[in-house]
């Protein structure tokens, strides 16, 4: 049974990170390859907040959430805004550059060594006994809860609020959205903000669960197959894609070889790209009718 708990926790992690990829892609067709770095930046912001502003874990996390919103908004306003109307490839390459820059900046500021964020915040990551045979860490439990809340919130926002509707509309047909008076910059800024926010939550919880160093940005890369397997523009697809990858990863680690853990997501990625390149629930890119 422990294995089921592990699968659920890993699914939550991948799903939470993947939601960030999906949001930005769904709305602007840009693949944000700096998402892993932005996620880890969220965790480093927590380090900075707890060291410089307050040592109360709850206030520090709340402040980190606010800072992550500011970071997401700044990334759009200062960088990605200029890429609106440019070829998508230019925008994607900009995110690659952003990722490399962020990685370098984080090493410069916080150093290459591992940080124990939980102890800095005096957060006790005790393991919670759910039943006799199932134990999960407190941070993992929070991760599952946050993922559920974020997904319910995002789905409700996208389908019930007017700005959510505008985000879906702009992703499908940006020109028509502009012709109907929807301000694309507002919509894109919203997508980047929400994406960075959910990514930062994931980063903070991962850092609390283990240690924090810059190389953990690779989790972002591992969650990317989850988004792609589900279909890059489908939020519930990302959830299911995350599930597929988590199941395979946990089972292979358990029954075959733990060394496989890093390659599993990419094996699934290659398999899905061959069979169904637009993902399980994604929109098949159509050629324009002439």
């Amino acid at each position, binding site marked *: 049974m422990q294995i089921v708990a592990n699968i659920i926790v890993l699914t939550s992690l991948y799903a939470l990170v993947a939601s960030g990829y999906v949001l930005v892609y769904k709305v602007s067709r840009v693949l944000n390859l700096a998402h892993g770095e932005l996620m880890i930046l969220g965790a480093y912001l927590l380090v900075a907040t707890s060291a410089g502003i307050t040592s109360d874990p709850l206030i520090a996390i709340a402040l980190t959430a606010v800072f992550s919103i500011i970071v997401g908004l700044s990334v759009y306003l200062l960088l990605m805004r200029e890429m*609106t*109307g440019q070829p998508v490839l230019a925008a994607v390459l900009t995110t690659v550059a952003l990722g490399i820059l962020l990685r370098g900046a984080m090493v410069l500021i916080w150093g290459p060594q591992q940080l124990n964020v939980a102890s800095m915040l005096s957060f006790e990551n005790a393991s919670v006994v759910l039943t006799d045979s199932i134990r999960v860490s407190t941070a993992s439990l929070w991760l599952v809860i946050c993922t559920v809340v974020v997904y319910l919130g995002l789905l409700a926002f996208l389908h019930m609020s*007017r700005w959510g*509707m*505008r985000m*879906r*509309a702009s*992703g*499908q*047909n940006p*020109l*028509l*959205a*502009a*012709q*109907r*008076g*929807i*301000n694309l910059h507002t919509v894109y800024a919203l997508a980047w903000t929400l994406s960075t926010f959910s990514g930062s939550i994931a980063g903070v919880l991962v850092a609390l669960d283990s240690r924090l160093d810059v190389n953990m940005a690779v989790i972002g890369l591992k969650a990317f197959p989850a988004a792609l397997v589900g279909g890059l523009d489908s939020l519930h697809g990302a959830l299911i894609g995350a599930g597929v990858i988590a199941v395979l990863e946990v089972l292979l680690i358990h029954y075959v070889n733990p060394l496989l853990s890093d390659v599993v997501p990419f094996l699934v990625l290659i398999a899905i790209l061959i069979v169904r390149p637009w993902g399980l629930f994604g*929109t098949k890119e159509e050629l*324009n*009718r002439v």
Partner: protein
Amino acid sequence: MTDILEITDLEVTYQRSILALHGVNLRVAKGQITSLLGANGAGKSTTLRAISGFIGLDNARVNAGRVRFLGEDITGLQLPRTIHKGIVLVPERDKVFTNLTVAENLEVVATSREEGSKWQQIEEEIFVYFPRLAKLRNKPAGLLSGGERQMLAIGGALVCRPQLLLIDELSLGLAPVIVDEIIERLREVHAKTELSMLLVEQSAAVAFALASYGFVLENGKVELEGATEDLRSNQKVLDLYLGTGSTGRADYLANARRRFEERANV
């Protein structure tokens, strides 16, 4: 009668070099429906896009000339500011959000001022004009037929509260019986609201059925203009757009072929 829109000597280039309009002059009278006729590539859509505002993606620019709307110079004004002025375009292609339902397609464009009950009222208004849409309100727009999409697109544009409605290719690709229905609906809208419209068409029959005044565009220039009755009896229009004259059409086709071959040789 005052003109709501007045275009003088408008020149538009694409990608800094391709001249699409060479000095277009046209006017839309307030409260009237005006048509703009022309064949493929005559510059009709470009004219509409120049009025409703280009976006960066278009790589198009107004080189010369003036566009005046309600007496105000709006030349080169970009989206979404043209919408705020009251100019709304129904584009030729991709005119609905296919992943949104019919009701969402209408709601998505409404400004934040129109929440709640007032919004309901606007939605009902659109469904009165297009009863067919009311039955489809929860259906994704991607599943609608061409005619239903056109109605939804017009409905969506009307939600934006336009003072001037621009419609690009009202009848293109639609079955005649659907075109008749849409014409009927637009007449109703016009009778009730006296909305000024500029209608781009390839079919003279459709243009004449709705408009009271018309312009004929050819190779980026207005070749002919006049009241619908005058245009209806004009030999050239008959030849080119109603297909009633045989010689004129043959001449036109021969000319077109020659131009095409010249271009191919270059």
